[in-house]
């Protein structure tokens, strides 16, 4: 297996991109990544996208996007793992390069979510749950995470304010990210008085509906040094695991088993421990998600996740800054793009290009990207060479 490096990254401003089609936002970020890497071609591409069919009525996405990128006839594949589709695309790109099938691989994630109305978007996202045994009964994604939140509060005494602190922290970070959809700060009072979506989660506990894409270029580590002058970032750990599709099938709804398993696998492959990680981009689709994720990844003791944002542990300047980019919460969450955008942020940080939100001296970064209510998770560990 060959070592794999990230040599190019691309991301544009996320938000409600009314004048851009899915293919446009994909091509824009892909070109940025290609230019950043300084390559003149790619050998193959993977694109992560959750449900272009339900959002824009387009399937056969990989071929369409390779075509519009002007890269046909390269092999192109679209992968899907709900909100972890982007993370899965990174893994597939990694495997393609590591196995020697391709040298230069474009990995992209994309989602165009605003072409449908709010209740249709809620429905489209709810298809990541067990359709016949969760979705059929009217559960939504905020609803599933709300059930985790209520259980976490009931079992561990996590407070409503602690949940709000996750949003406050991530918006504080996001305000430093010019590409974020909502680059502004919010207050605990603001979160607690925002509209209730699924008790106890309010609108400011939820990541938004976003149009956006992100792209990275992968190549063998040996080749990286000949292609770019920028600091080379190596993917040193890859973890991938699944859990029950239905939340009700888990013994404990506050434990993200797939995240724990994927984290263990990535740590083992990279030869790292949680305390070796300098910063992490994790899947804070809802405030409670970040709390459960940092527990599953071993950044904090099980049940204590609620204290992390409030105490500053996971803030910029803290022991383990989490979601320096603003996270899904402030940066936006175009579902299929998120896993790739997390890698973009870590590479920026490890290269020292993160400007006002730069984590000083960052050498080892981690991404965690999760599908559904935790039914799939991808964890990647990246290190600057």
């Amino acid at each position, binding site marked *: 297996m060959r070592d794999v490096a990230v040599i190019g990254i691309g991301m544009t401003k996320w938000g409600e991109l009314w004048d851009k089609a899915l293919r446009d936002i994909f091509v824009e970020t892909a070109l940025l990544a290609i230019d950043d890497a300084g390559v003149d071609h790619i050998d193959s591409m993977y694109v992560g996208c959750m449900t272009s069919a339900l959002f824009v009525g387009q399937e056969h996405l990989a071929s369409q996007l390779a075509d519009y990128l002007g890269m046909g006839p390269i092999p192109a594949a679209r992968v899907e793992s709900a909100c972890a589709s982007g993370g899965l695309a990174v893994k597939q790109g990694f495997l393609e390069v590591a196995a020697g099938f391709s040298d230069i691989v474009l990995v992209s994630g994309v989602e165009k979510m605003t072409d449908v109305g709010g209740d249709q978007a809620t429905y489209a996202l709810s298809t990541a749950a067990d359709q016949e045994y969760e979705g059929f*009964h009217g559960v*939504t994604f905020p609803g599933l995470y709300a059930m985790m939140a209520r259980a976490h509060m009931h079992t561990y005494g996590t407070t409503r304010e602690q949940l709000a602190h996750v949003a406050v922290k991530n918006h504080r970070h996001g305000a430093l990210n010019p590409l974020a959809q909502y680059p502004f700060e919010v207050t605990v009072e603001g979160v607690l008085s925002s509209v209730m979506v699924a008790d106890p989660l309010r609108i400011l506990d939820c990541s938004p509906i976003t149009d956006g894409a992100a792209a990275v270029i992968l190549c063998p580590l040996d080749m990286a040094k000949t292609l770019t002058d920028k600091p080379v970032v190596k993917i040193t750990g890859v973890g991938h695991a699944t859990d029950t599709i239905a939340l009700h099938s888990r013994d404990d709804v506050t434990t993200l088993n797939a995240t724990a398993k994927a984290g263990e696998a990535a740590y083992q492959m990279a030869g790292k421990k949680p305390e070796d990680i300098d910063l992490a981009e994790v899947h804070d689709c809802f405030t409670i998600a970040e709390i459960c994720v940092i527990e599953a990844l071993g950044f904090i003791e099980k049940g204590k996740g609620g204290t992390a944002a409030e105490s500053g542990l996971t803030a910029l300047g803290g022991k383990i800054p989490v979601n320096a980019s603003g996270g899904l919460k402030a940066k936006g969450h175009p579902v299929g793009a998120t896993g790739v955008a997390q890698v973009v942020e870590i590479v920026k940080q490890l290269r020292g290009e993160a400007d006002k939100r730069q984590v000083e001296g960052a050498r080892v970064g981690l991404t965690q990207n999760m599908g559904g209510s935790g039914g799939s998770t991808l964890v990647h560990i990246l290190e600057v060479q």
Partner: protein
Amino acid sequence: MVTPARYWREIPQRYRLEAGKCTRCGKTYFPPRLVCACGAREFEIVRLKDEGTLQTFTVIRVAPSQFVDEAPYAIGIVELNDGVRLTAQVVDCDVEHLEIGQKVKVEFRRIQTVGEAGILCYGYKCVPV
């Protein structure tokens, strides 16, 4: 959108809470499965208990398209008295005062109505006792 065949296929589970119980290790799956975690592939069909306890819940205020008219509605994870857990709406209650640990019973209700002229979908909901 629920189609007739998709709905019909799940009728034994939705109407009668039919589950699959592994004849080797006794683990019960709802809905029934073809293979057990223990590796066995023989199951007997059992009907689950129609009473249980609310493990966690939420109140959906922003609903998917088919449920918009019913919001706000409570939905939760219920552990039936035989230990099997499922997701169901909790109805006939004051959603503002529901609590974890609430004892519930299963009632037969309409779950979804497909458009103005489509099929009516029935199944289980829970009601506090």
